[in-house]
């Protein structure tokens, strides 16, 4: 069955932190990561490792989160390895290009930064449920209007989307399987034929989505919804621990940026 996001329920101190604190912390770690060089990266890596340890996230899950970004990381490393001028690492050139020390350093640094960014974000989503995250985003954005939408409306839209992704995914899979069963071929035929094959997959999905939209609008109106401020089952509250973590994170970030 489709699993919503990467959330791993738990009771660790990391899990217990307020979603807002964790979001701010991830933004801070990202800023530091993008800002520092090798030594800074090593420190961030150590910090992330200890957070992962405290949160008791199995290493397998961290690696699984990194898997999708591996092809891109490999490509980046290769590009820099081959196309950076400097001191050659190998005594002979590989074809037209040569592997250089500078290239290796720059490539590893960039890939390291990228992977750390991904890990930091994954730790957030592994220790915070989608509902908490939505509430966190809602509260952090509460003073602002973004693209004509208030934080309440944005949270509502996120909630609706999270609710319907699994449903639509199931529906899309069913339609695609039905088409394959009827002998639809996606990877051959002329342009016109291909356009038609893909359309036959997307048309029924779209029309069913339009119907769902109409029913949802009715149901939400019937339950008294109107765009604008509303109240929630869980209001986030900051504990002493949350304040402590927040202040530490902000101080460390400030120190690293100004140094």
């Amino acid at each position, binding site marked *: 069955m489709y699993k919503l996001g990467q959330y791993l329920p738990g009771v660790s101190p990391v899990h217990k932190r307020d979603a807002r604190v964790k979001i701010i912390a991830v933004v801070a770690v990202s800023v530091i990561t993008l800002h520092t060089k090798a030594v800074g990266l090593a420190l961030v890596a150590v910090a992330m490792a200890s957070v992962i340890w405290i949160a008791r996230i199995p290493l397998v899950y961290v690696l699984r989160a990194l898997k999708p970004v591996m092809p891109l990381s490999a490509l980046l490393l290769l590009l820099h390895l081959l196309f950076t001028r400097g001191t050659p690492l190998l005594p002979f050139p590989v074809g037209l290009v040569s592997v250089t020390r500078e290239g290796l350093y720059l490539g590893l640094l960039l890939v390291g930064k990228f992977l750390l960014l991904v890990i930091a974000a994954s730790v957030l989503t592994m220790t915070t449920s989608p*509902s908490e995250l939505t509430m966190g985003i809602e509260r952090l954005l509460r003073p602002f209007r973004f693209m004509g939408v208030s934080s309440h409306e944005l949270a509502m839209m996120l*909630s609706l989307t999270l*609710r319907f992704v699994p449903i639509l995914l199931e529906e899309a899979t069913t339609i695609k399987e039905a088409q394959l069963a009827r002998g639809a071929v996606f990877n051959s035929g002329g342009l016109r034929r291909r356009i038609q094959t893909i359309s036959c997959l997307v048309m029924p999905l779209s029309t069913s989505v339009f119907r769902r939209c109409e*029913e949802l609008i*009715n149901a939400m*109106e019937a339950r008294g919804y*109107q765009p604008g401020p*509303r109240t929630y089952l869980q209001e986030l509250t900051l504990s002493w621990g949350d304040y402590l973590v927040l202040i530490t994170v902000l101080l460390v970030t400030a120190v690293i940026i100004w140094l």
Partner: protein
Amino acid sequence: MIRTEALVYRYGREQSPVLNAINLCIEEGEYVAIIGPNGCGKTTLIRHFNALLLPTAGEVWIDGLNTRDFRSVGEIRRRVGMIFQNPDNQIVGMTVEEDTAFGPGNLGLPSTEIRQRVDEALATVGLKEYATRPPHHLSGGQKQLLALAGVLAMHPKYIVLDEPTSSLDPITREHVLLMLKQLHRKGITIIQVTHNMEEAAIADRLIVMNQGTVVADGPPSRVLSNINQLKLLGLAPPRITELMYYLQRMGEDVRTDIFTVTDAVTEITTLTNRLRQQAVVRPGGEVCRYV
């Protein structure tokens, strides 16, 4: 009390109105079923009860609040909860409890109050143990119960349901109907549109609609036993009622206001017992036919 006065509704500039001068009065505490052929306007009618639709002509009053008055719409929607046919497309929360909290949140209640109402509503429908699960993992029947919980958390006086059981299997349907019966006993007015005549028979009052008008209105015993009228409208009366109807037409002394197998068994047993006794009193060849 829900009252419609000469309610007319037409979609756009279509010639024939979907609802044609409907005058209805539904008192508090009633259990009403609305039946009728497809396109008779029953869904359109109930959507007027919580201001989802506004009349083209005429008025709809909920406890003296007019649905046209935009200031009353919030209160009307709190008092009149609505449940739709497709359970999936009326759930908006990421978890069961969050979905239940949607209505109270729209009322702007404080979190503590919402928590209390959510727990209460989930306990009533028996979904307490699923509180933190995503709704996607619930069965069709459980989703419909969740929709009911979402409505109950608003503390409604009326619950209007649009074919709530049409997509459910027989066992969960029984469960949902039992739930409605319980809520009715607690004093909540139930108004239910249905295709299923056995379901309609549970109600205290049955309204039959055809082509935008009310063609019959009364207790199920009276309305459903009028087999000919139902058949004219293309509605299938409960099979068991039809059986009694044909027995009666064959000259047997049975009632036709019977909608359940249990009642039918009682009625037929009484009949056969009576005939047995008659057979003892007046022995003759004729009796063999019955026993």
